[in-house]
């Protein structure tokens, strides 16, 4: 840019460069430079105070600590009650963790400050302190010790040991963990959780980022018990709001049935962690927390061997037993889980019987609901048609009539299986729901057309397809279904040989359109409600534990 030189020739240009240099000096906290510029150009003095005031405004608008670290050349640590805060270790849903130094004890600890809307009334703070005191009695090699619980300037906090080392979540960022290592860790974690349970504490927030790894690469639990304090703090009118990531939550927690949360909920979370350590991904993970909650409650986790065939069947069963929807079917305690894992390591057989074929079948059904419901409808239909054909072997007309239908049904079933297979193989399967929908509409139209059935009683099936597509809550899927159905129906009408009047097709198109609009409207309303719930819940964690600064 050439005009900067031309400006510097003018008095204005010179002043601008000086002001700019001076502001830069203020912003970088360089006081020597500020003094030098002031002595060089006394005119600056008139501006200096205002520039500094504006800048201090910049500082209060941002995070005070952020500014500190930016201008840390001379920055002393920040006093916080008895402690000096010496930098941030990480942030999570419940608060911020600082490296804190206690000058009298000459000791450095991790200080967690609880923030957010959850701790506003004195009563809530008192209950938090109660929970934290209970937690501070715990001493266990694989549990981070809590030292001090307090309240400074209305800011509840507690201090704990600093664990140097990454969390399991950081390890998982690089993919799955070797099987033996994962099992070894899980045995230790489960025993630590058992220790918590025997002291009357339910962790409630077990997840990979809450399992830190110490110098010896051994797991260490953090953040236990406090989630309970938070749960209870929640306004009863919003019970059911989700705290934290639902991927590791038991169905009873995810559904917000706080009273049903027991030690077995922690067993579930242990299973979810084991699952992720072995497979590299949690058992349930969808695009939004709400969808994840739905999966946690309604779906069966994919078998571990789906992700990694190297995982032994027995180990898979141990993990899936933790992930049972019904708490009664899980391991009765974390210790039982640890013992069963140890038995597996030693190659001994488990006292827990394996699943009956009926249960296994219903599991598979819940694992692949999209294809399962289609099979449930199509396979019996196909069988009936086949039976009809067999019974009428002497009448070639009937068999000619049914053969194409049978073929179409088989193709329909086949394609559904292909789509489901594709959906389960790839992670980005956005198009498979559309493939399912279009397959349904095309085959339905084709079969109805072969039978020359354009009358109302048969074509209401189109409306049903639209309504079912509404279960996805996905507006573009609903409209795909709606428009696809109208197109399918028009094909049907066009090919129909005999119909009395145009009134029926017009009514039918109006019916399908109305169905689409209403379904879409419902989906939109529900999505708005869900989103408002998700944003109202400010506690969705963005947890990272960066152990060193």
């Amino acid at each position, binding site marked *: 840019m050439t*005009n*900067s030189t031309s400006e510097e020739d003018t008095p204005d240009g010179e002043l601008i460069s000086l002001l700019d240099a001076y502001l830069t000096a203020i912003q970088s906290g360089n006081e020597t430079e500020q003094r030098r510029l002031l002595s060089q150009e006394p005119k600056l003095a008139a501006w200096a105070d205002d520039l500094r005031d*504006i800048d201090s*405004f910049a500082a*209060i*608008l*941002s*995070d005070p600590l952020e500014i500190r670290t930016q201008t840390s050349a001379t920055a002393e640590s920040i006093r916080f009650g008895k402690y000096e805060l010496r930098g941030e270790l990480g942030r999570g849903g419940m608060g911020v963790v600082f490296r804190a130094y206690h000058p009298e004890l000459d000791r450095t600890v991790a200080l967690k400050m609880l923030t957010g809307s959850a701790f506003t009334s004195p009563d809530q703070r008192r209950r938090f302190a109660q929970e934290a005191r209970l937690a501070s009695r715990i001493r266990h090699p694989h549990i981070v010790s809590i030292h001090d619980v307090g309240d400074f300037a209305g*800011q509840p906090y507690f201090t704990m040991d600093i664990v140097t080392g990454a969390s399991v979540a950081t390890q998982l960022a690089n993919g799955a963990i070797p099987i033996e290592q994962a099992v070894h860790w899980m045995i230790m974690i489960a025993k630590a959780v058992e220790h918590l349970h025997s002291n009357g504490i339910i962790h409630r927030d077990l997840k990979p980022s809450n399992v830190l790894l110490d110098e010896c690469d051994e797991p260490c639990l953090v953040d236990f018990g406090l989630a309970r304090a938070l749960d209870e703090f929640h306004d009863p009118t919003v019970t059911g709001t989700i705290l934290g990531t639902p991927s590791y939550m038991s169905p009873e927690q995810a559904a917000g049935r706080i009273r049903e949360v027991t030690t077995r909920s922690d067993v579930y979370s242990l299973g979810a962690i084991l699952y992720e350590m072995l497979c590299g991904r949690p058992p349930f993970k969808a695009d939004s927390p709400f969808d994840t909650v739905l999966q946690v409650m309604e779906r069966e986790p994919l078998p571990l061997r789906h992700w990694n065939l190297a995982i032994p069947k027995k180990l898979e069963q141990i993990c899936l037993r933790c992930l049972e929807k019904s708490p009664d079917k899980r391991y009765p305690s974390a210790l039982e889980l640890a013992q069963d894992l140890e038995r597996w390591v030693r190659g001994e057989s488990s006292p827990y019987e394996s699943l009956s074929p009926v249960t296994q079948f219903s599991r598979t059904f819940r694992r692949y609901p999209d294809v399962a419901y289609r099979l449930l409808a199509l396979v019996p239909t196909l069988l009936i048609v086949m039976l009809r054909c067999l019974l009428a072997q002497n009448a070639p007309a009937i068999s000619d009539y049914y053969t194409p239908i049978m073929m179409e049904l088989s193709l329909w079933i086949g394609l559904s299986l292909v789509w489901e297979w594709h959906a389960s193989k790839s992670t980005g399967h956005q198009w498979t729901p559309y493939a399912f929908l279009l397959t349904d509409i095309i085959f339905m139209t084709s079969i109805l057309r072969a039978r020359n059935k354009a009358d109302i009683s048969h074509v209401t099936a189109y409306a049903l397809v639209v309504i079912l597509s509404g279960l996805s809550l996905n507006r573009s899927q609903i409209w795909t279904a709606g428009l696809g159905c109208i197109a399918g129906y028009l094909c049907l009408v066009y090919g129909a040989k005999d119909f009395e009047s145009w009134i029926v097709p017009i009514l039918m198109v109006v019916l399908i359109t109305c169905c689409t609009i209403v379904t879409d409207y419902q989906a939109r309303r529900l999505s708005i409600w869900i989103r408002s719930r998700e944003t109202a819940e400010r506690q969705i964690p963005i947890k990272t534990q960066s152990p060193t600064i």
Partner: protein
Amino acid sequence: MNADSSQLADWLTLARQGDDSARNRLFEACRSFVALTARVQLHRRLQTKVDPSDLVQQSMMEAHHGFDKFRGGTPEEWLAWLKQIVQHNVLDADKHYRGTERRDLRRERPISDPALSHADWSPADPGPSPSQVLSKAERELQVAVAIESLPDDYRQVVLLRNLERMSFDDVAARMNRSRGACQMLWMRAVEQLRTQLNQDISSS
């Protein structure tokens, strides 16, 4: 200056005792502060879809409704509290407009999340006397009023250069003007700010 600053403290005290007119004056005095905070926070999150004035409205209403929950005493704590409310609302609006993008696990970085921020318990000055604290809060309000009352392009350049601490090259790129033009604009803006701030002082 002192008379003026104690006025803010007085309003705060009276408002907490239930004086409605003091409360209204207190809120009126802080409107620009709230507006500027919202503006800077939105800017920082690159959130252009949200109108700052909506957030101001919402934050002021929340502050009104939740006034009883304010537990601090000093004007400085009061401003920090207001700031916290604005930050919550900015975060909500941001989440809302970003949709599911924010859930991406790869984005789980320790961003400086304003929702987790807290009362401004670490003033840069290690031990300000009470009167200094008061005048600081008062000064902040003045600066906010002055910046908010600037014409749009002046305010934009001050926001980028002074508050966001961007270099003029970046400012020029952002404002889609030449570097020289931005510098001239900036100097005029700062000059106007200075005039206004000094007027305020002499008038008070």
